[in-house]
């Protein structure tokens, strides 16, 4: 019996990936996290998952393919209003609503799930505790639990269940310091490798009238210590990891800084008051993210992030002009 060429190619790709992934995580939580990031970045997978947060349960389907054409993804809602996000080498396309309006941006190309190594920043390992938990069955597969427990009230804790064979993420859970579950994502079925149906990468919209997302162009990333506006207080272990200084063009006239402890992160925006629409003054929440905005002299200060409310509020209140 002859196997089709594409089957052999797929089998070869799976074997190659299996060899290249860290094979033995053992009892080391960090090794399991390394396996996860490698698997999420290198493997093709497809599955249905539930996302539960903020009194809402949504069913989504993801297809993630890595082949000679590069990395491509499609995330589409199974329940609720139609939402569809496609990521490929040309950037991100976001189809929303029944009218299938399309928002596209060639500069935005981040993955649906984390594909980078999960580690605290160098020199800081005291702000999370990494632990292995018990195994359980998820989506007909054995899953290993890994806990990332926050040391304080300024960041959340995470629980991950990783597929024991590959390290793929099967369940994710966000927990606050009191142990309350804020959000949960769990796969109900998962295929990988040659089982992935490539036809599901195709978008559902026949008419793709693309409109730029409006995100600022020139996403050059750098870290500068000479920023005019800076947060004077940060949670222990947080450092500035990215900075976009104000530019001359209308699309880049605001200052944007990112602070992170390697796992959690917040953004600080400083915009001219007269041109800022802001997100409304004070403290807001959207899903598991918090946003705090305040006026300061002639600028609007806004801090956002997937961190507790206290964190964005304290950072925003601490911002001041960094005099040379």
């Amino acid at each position, binding site marked *: 019996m002859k196997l089709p060429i594409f089957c052999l190619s797929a089998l070869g790709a799976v074997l190659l990936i299996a060899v290249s992934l860290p094979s033995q995580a053992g009892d080391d939580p960090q090794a399991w996290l390394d396996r996860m990031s490698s698997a999420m970045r290198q493997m093709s997978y497809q599955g*249905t998952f539930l996302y539960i947060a903020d009194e*809402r349960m949504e069913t989504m389907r993801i297809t993630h393919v890595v082949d000679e054409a590069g990395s491509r993804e499609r995330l589409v809602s*199974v329940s609720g209003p139609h939402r569809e996000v496609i990521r490929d080498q040309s950037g991100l396309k976001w189809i929303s609503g029944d009218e299938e309006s399309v928002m596209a941006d060639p500069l935005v190309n981040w993955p649906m799930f984390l594909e980078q190594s999960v580690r605290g920043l160098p020199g800081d390992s005291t702000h999370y505790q990494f632990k292995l938990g018990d195994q359980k069955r998820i989506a007909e597969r054995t899953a290993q639990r890994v806990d990332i427990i926050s040391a304080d009230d300024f960041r959340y804790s995470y629980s991950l269940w990783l597929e024991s064979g590959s390290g793929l993420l099967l369940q994710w859970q966000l927990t606050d310091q009191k142990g309350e579950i804020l959000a949960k994502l769990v796969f109900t079925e998962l295929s990988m490798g040659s089982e992935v149906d490539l036809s599901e990468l195709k978008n559902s919209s026949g008419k793709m009238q693309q409109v730029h997302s409006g995100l600022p162009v020139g996403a050059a990333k750098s870290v500068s210590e000479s920023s005019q506006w800076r947060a004077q207080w940060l949670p222990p272990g947080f450092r500035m990891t990215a900075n976009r200084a104000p530019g001359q063009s209308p699309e880049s006239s605001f200052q944007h800084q990112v602070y992170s402890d390697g*796992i959690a992160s917040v953004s600080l*925006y400083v915009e001219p008051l007269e041109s800022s629409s802001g997100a409304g003054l004070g403290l*807001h929440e959207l899903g598991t993210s918090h946003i705090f905005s305040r006026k300061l002299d002639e600028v609007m200060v806004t801090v956002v992030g997937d961190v507790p409310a206290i964190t964005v509020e304290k950072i925003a209140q601490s911002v001041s002009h960094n005099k040379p």
Partner: protein
Amino acid sequence: MKSESMNTESINTEPRVNLSSFMDGEVDKSAGSFLVRRLANDQVLRATWDRYHVIRDCLRQQDAHLVQEDLCSRVRQAIDLEDSQSAPASQPRNWVKSMAGVAIAASVAMLAIVTVGPGQQGGPDAAVQAPALAAQAESFVSPNMGNAVPASQPVNLAGQSASEREKAKAYLLRHYQLTGDGAGQGFVALVPIVVTGENAGTDDSPKLSPAAEEAELPQQ
């Protein structure tokens, strides 16, 4: 009382029983697909699904890294209130709290389903494990950082206008644009934005048009 309530339920028992396995991904593919279709179209089953999460988590305490006694005591209080024909009064903002405070009491009859089978509930292991985890976590927490609370209560944008949510989404998109290939990207970064970026779950929610999207972005 519980058996009477169960008999008057309008939905079939089998989907409810399967739900408890489904939310941990523990049903096979065909059964899962069936339940996904049912959940998308069956409001009663979906409400049951929401209640199961809180009940299950409190009974099993499998997900409590730290101390979850407060939540579970509220669940038990809700159960007691149901027994005395009283309605719960509190409406905390958190989804877990909310369901614990409001939905659990009304669904106390379903406890019998969730607790069926010794393998499906916490049992002695969970009872021992929860305090142990809590003790470990307590010793790990820096003593000077507990009980930190924001000065103000957050306003949930899910209840605000679509334009307010779009402003917030624009900030989040920019945030992940700059963290997208570096530290702090988040494990499921894009998923919450896709799910919460629109008022999903509310059919009459305003639809995002490209023109509106650009108009609502913060002006630079």
